[in-house]
């Protein structure tokens, strides 16, 4: 029997005190695992599907608008800045670091879509919004065998925002009890677009209404989130057909390198235009949540280390004479210190495993309970719990680290015990 057996015996003998340390570790780890798993799960299954996976070299520019009493003004132009038109796009194109500018053309004609009886079981009619974009902007997202170009004779090619498909899969499909759709399954889906009529505005002033076939040809993160995305030329043709100009409602700016993002953004904002800040806000929110989590984690580490240190101080104070005797019998300071630290690692590991099981179990339980409510609101993510490896690593580090940190000072102080006190006691 040597140190290993001595440590085992010691752990068994002082099991009540070690249980205190174990509970402190398990509590910290449990809370961390619980919070971490829920945060990671909410991010993965609820937030991330909402956030467009935009490449960093693309910026979306919009006019700064101001709405008063239902009337919308171009706030940027009113304040002496630029409006968003063809000349502004040219100015943006001239900025250093800008590779290409893609206009997003809005519809000036009412639109309505109908169809879906094959899939939904009944014909669905709804007003729609549509925007036109140059094919080069989303050509990488067009499905194999499909085309995204203006064709007056054939079906109108339509691209859908990926987030809309994800929203359908996570929100609509469970409620209407339809299967989730992959991009491949939805590609090629045909429906009808009525041009010149909508429920909101009735018929166009010209009274002209016609129907065209439309076909989904792909899914893109740069497609409109509030409707259909069709070729720019098609949209301009429709507007022209109904006697309207084709306003530039937004633009995509492709950068030569993401490093230019800061300078280009600053210049565009100086012109009174607005950049779509949704991804930025989302990223900031996620960063803040991550920071809060890390702060909580550090706080927990410190608190648990402090609590563990108190337990150690109490326990080691009771055993001062014993350690003095062991020192008198020939143990070095390092022998005692190592002994106590190894014990703290063992207890920390056990506490961590208990904390992980309890914390993750509680998170899964809460997730299922919440999901049972969320279903009523027609939003049901797959889960609200995720356990990435980094979370496991952090909790292991927290548990064992807190135990060792808490034991460190008491262990060092104990190892410095004067062996002569063994005689005096």
């Amino acid at each position: 029997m040597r140190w290993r057996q001595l440590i085992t015996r010691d752990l068994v003998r002082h099991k009540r005190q070690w249980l205190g340390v174990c509970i402190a570790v398990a509590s910290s780890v449990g809370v961390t695992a619980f919070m971490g798993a829920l945060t990671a799960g909410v991010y993965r299954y609820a937030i991330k599907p909402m956030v467009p996976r935009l490449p960093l070299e693309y910026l979306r520019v919009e006019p700064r608008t101001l709405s008063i009493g239902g009337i919308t003004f171009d706030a940027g132009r009113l304040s002496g800045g630029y409006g968003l038109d063809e000349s502004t796009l040219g100015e943006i194109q001239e900025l250093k670091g800008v590779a290409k500018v893609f206009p997003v053309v809005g519809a000036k004609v009412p639109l309505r879509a109908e169809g879906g009886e094959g899939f939904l079981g009944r014909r669905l009619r709804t007003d729609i919004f549509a925007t036109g974009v140059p094919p080069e902007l989303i050509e990488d997202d067009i499905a194999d065998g499909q085309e995204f170009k203006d064709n007056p004779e054939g079906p109108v090619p339509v691209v859908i925002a990926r987030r809309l498909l994800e929203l359908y899969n996570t929100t609509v499909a469970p409620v209407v009890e339809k299967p989730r759709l992959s991009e491949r399954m939805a590609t090629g889906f045909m429906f009808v677009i009525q041009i010149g009529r909508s429920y909101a505005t009735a018929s166009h002033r010209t009274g002209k209404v016609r129907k065209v076939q439309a076909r989904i040809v792909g899914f893109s993160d740069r497609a409109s989130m509030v409707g259909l995305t069709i070729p720019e030329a098609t949209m301009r043709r429709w507007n022209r057909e109904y006697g309207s100009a084709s306003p530039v409602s937004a633009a995509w700016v492709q950068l030569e390198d993401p490093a230019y993002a800061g300078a280009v953004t600053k210049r565009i904002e100086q012109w009174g235009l607005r950049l779509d800040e949704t991804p930025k806000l989302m990223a900031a929110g996620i960063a803040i949540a991550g920071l809060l989590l890390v702060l909580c984690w550090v706080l927990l580490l410190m608190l648990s280390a402090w609590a563990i240190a108190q337990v150690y101080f109490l326990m080691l104070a009771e055993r001062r004479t014993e350690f003095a005797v062991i020192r008198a019998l020939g143990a070095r300071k390092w022998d005692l210190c190592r002994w106590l630290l190894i014990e703290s690692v063992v207890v920390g590991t056990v506490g961590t495993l208990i904390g992980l099981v309890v914390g993750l179990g509680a998170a899964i339980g809460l997730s299922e309970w919440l999901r049972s409510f969320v279903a009523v609101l027609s939003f049901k993510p797959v889960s609200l719990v995720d356990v990435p490896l980094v979370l496991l690593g952090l909790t292991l580090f927290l548990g064992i680290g807190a135990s060792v940190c808490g034991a460190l000072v008491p262990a060092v102080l104990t190892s410095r015990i004067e062996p002569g006190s063994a005689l005096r006691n």
Partner: protein
Amino acid sequence: MSFGEEVVRFHRVTKTIKAEEGERTLFEDIELSILSGEWVAIVGASGAGKTTLLSMIGALDNRFEGELEVLDHSLLTLNDNELAMLRSQHIGFIFQDFHLLTHLSVLENVAFPLWISRAKADQTELVRAQNVLSDVGLASRWNSKVTHLSGGEQQRVAIARALVGDPRLIIADEPTGNLDEVSSECVLDLFEALRTPDDSGQAARTVVVATHDPRVAQRADRIIKLEEQKLVMVEAVS
């Protein structure tokens, strides 16, 4: 080490300690020599510094002024690890309250100094501990819990623990303080026996005992009395 060699040497040693009233000198400029094979009893009033003197001889305390050599080592030149090594390999301790480790068996208590000495082979430790237990008459109790032993038996386990490393110097603080008369005599007989070399050529051990018990002092070769910061009386008993 044969009889008559110097095991402990104090030269102009002064020891001060921190007390409530400030620094207090326990003894000043003391000179003392203890030879191998000697049994020395240190006596004196409570607080005179017997235990402190014992701590210094046992390499537990090296904060003093002067020169102190124990087993050819100048204590002031040794660091903490070297002091621990010296204690582990050459000095055995017997405490008044036994200070046995209650979670270990009798045999494990005796083997404990070997486990922490890092110098002995693992397989021989328990065998050696068993032999020493036989020497103190506790061979049959090797597997007992120490808490199940009488005071005298516990002290004999403590003596076995002190002897297991085959130390050249035994330090005992009030070894009979918690024992009845019969047990005390038994312990004293053990002390007598262990400092006497046997026919196998075992080296002579030196025993230094701090005590209030006149029976212990009377069995010693020399009595050293601590009084008024000095070793005022060094008496040869036999």
